[in-house]
């Protein structure tokens, strides 16, 4: 027995490290996305849209469930307060309180900017595409601030509905996505989504500020600043319906 124990221990040790090591790039990405989205979330945030000659700040409340459903409600400024955008799968609806109407966003408008930001309506519904529609490769690792950071190159699969040539993610060992870069099919960098100010929110480390920047334009970006966020909350199914969209409780 005493002879077996070290063997078993060393075997399990080897297995553990192997298991740890054996986290595939795909798993890393999936883990990071799930960490970010969690099962559900409710957040209060500000969205800042910045251009060379102007800037606009909108306040929002966001509800998400899984990777398929999300509801964003605007609370400020007054002119936009009460507007909401609901996404289920690939479909998106918009509600404008002034007219008390829900409008489904047609395919022709999906590539247009959402509320004037650097996100398109399409971007709102594509959060988990990154996992399944790509082939992931771990290209390198680096050390920073006591953390190990995995640099993963994700290449879209042949028929994936993705315009990018490749995307590069910097995922920290605690599953936080530090940077998400979007490259065109010739290898030029087009967009960068960066996590800034990682602080503890609702019991876990989370990027308080996320900024998406257009690399080819000067001084154009959109930033989301989370003021508060709660994870894993109970959200009833009725929240993600068209009637709820037009009748907030």
């Amino acid at each position, binding site marked *: 027995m005493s002879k077996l124990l070290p063997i078993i221990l060393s075997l399990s040790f080897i297995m553990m490290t192997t298991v740890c090591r054996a986290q595939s790039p795909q798993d890393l990405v999936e883990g990071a996305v799930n960490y970010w989205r969690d099962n559900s979330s409710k957040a209060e945030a500000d969205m800042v849209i910045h251009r060379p000659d102007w800037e606009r700040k909108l306040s929002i409340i966001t509800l998400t469930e899984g990777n398929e459903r999300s509801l964003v409600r605007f609370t400020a400024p007054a002119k936009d307060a009460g507007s909401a955008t609901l996404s289920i799968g690939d479909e998106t609806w918009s509600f404008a309180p002034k007219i008390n109407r829900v409008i489904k966003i047609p395919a022709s408008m*999906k590539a247009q900017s959402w509320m004037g930001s650097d996100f398109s309506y399409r971007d709102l519904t594509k959060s988990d595409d990154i996992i399944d529609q790509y082939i992931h490769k771990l290209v390198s690792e680096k050390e920073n601030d006591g953390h190990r950071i995995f640099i993963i190159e994700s290449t879209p699969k042949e028929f994936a*509905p993705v*315009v990018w040539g490749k995307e590069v993610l910097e995922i920290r060992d605690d599953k936080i996505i530090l940077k998400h870069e979007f490259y065109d099919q010739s290898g030029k960098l087009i967009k960068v989504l960066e996590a800034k100010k990682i602080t503890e929110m609702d019991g876990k480390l989370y990027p308080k500020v996320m900024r998406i920047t257009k690399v080819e334009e000067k001084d154009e970006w959109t930033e989301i600043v989370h003021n508060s966020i709660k994870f894993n909350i109970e959200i009833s199914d009725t929240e993600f319906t068209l009637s709820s969209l037009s009748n907030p409780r």
Partner: protein
Amino acid sequence: MPIILKLAFRNIWRNPKRSLITIGAISIGVWSAVTLSSIARGLSYGMADDAINNLVGHVQIHAPKYLDDPAAEFNFNISSSIVRDRLSSLKVRAVAERVRVPAVLLSERESVGVNLVGIDPQTEKSLSFIGDGVSEGLELMDQKDPGIIIGKRLKEILKTKLGNRVVLVTQDSNNSIVDRGFRIVGVFDAKLESTEKAFVFVGREVAQSFLNLEDGISEISLKLEDAEMVDAAIATLKMEFPEMEIDSWYVLEPLVIALRKVQDGFLIIWFFIVIVSVSFGVVNTQLMSTFERMREFGVMMALGLKPKRLLSMVTVESLMLLVIGLSMGNLMGAMNFFILSDGIDLSTFAAASEQLGFGKIVIPRFIARDWIQCSVLLVVIGLISTLYPAWKGSRYDPVTSISGRGV
């Protein structure tokens, strides 16, 4: 050969210089009229061909609501073989089944609204411009080919290139949003940039599965061997498929027919003008020639030749000049028709011909009717105008004519 013809012919050549110049004037008139009209016809008939080849075909079949709102939900299930079968009495060149819906095409930097067309590449070869192939890359192999073919101008607007992936976003038969990546396997060059921007092509079965259509299609387009049988085809099809929307190309592209009608009117007027202008010279010639032969006519009439006969002789002379000039003019016209048969390059006016719907090359078109009209007009007007000198000649008084003291 009757004496009158022999005589007339010899008379013409008594003054070769004069006759040649007159014949020359007539030929140039005829030649210019024929050439210009063939160029003008080339333009308008070319427009018609372009419209037909630009996916319209001779006849199109759709579901009733489709033309107002070309969505995937307005699909139908008629196969091309059934259509061919129903039209078996007419010679059908090709029948194509297509899926056609509006979509948005996305690249890394741009998004453009387009018409997504799902085709059977083999059938389209005898039907529309896409059958002519691609200028870059490869054609679609068959209706299952997973690639996409886009126009050259669209490629430039999207800032993408052959071999890249683009994303199509549209609504399927249930009006749900669907999207998919397609690799650009070929780039086509069309006569008009607007065509290059408007259409993107994928395999029909690929489109059907992408849009959740099963066996449904959006349109049937067909081409007949004989363009004149279009109305007959429409009548037959309307009887066989009363619930479908069936249209001919001229209903779908009315402006082309309008232009042709305007041209018909204009060309006749132009022929008339040219011929009248030419006639001034011919009448002059004939007047001179009768005046010169005053004495001779006097002698002939003194010898018993009836004035009517004289009239006929001079008239036949005119007719000969006209016919020879006409033939030469037509010959010259035919010659340069062959020389220009590859088409005239309009690229200096590229943007304009784009706007008006012509291609960049105009191929002159010989329309028999125009040619016949021109020739007939020439002979008729030519004869009428030379009637005066001929008549004058027949009224010479033999006595005064012989003395040479004029009319």
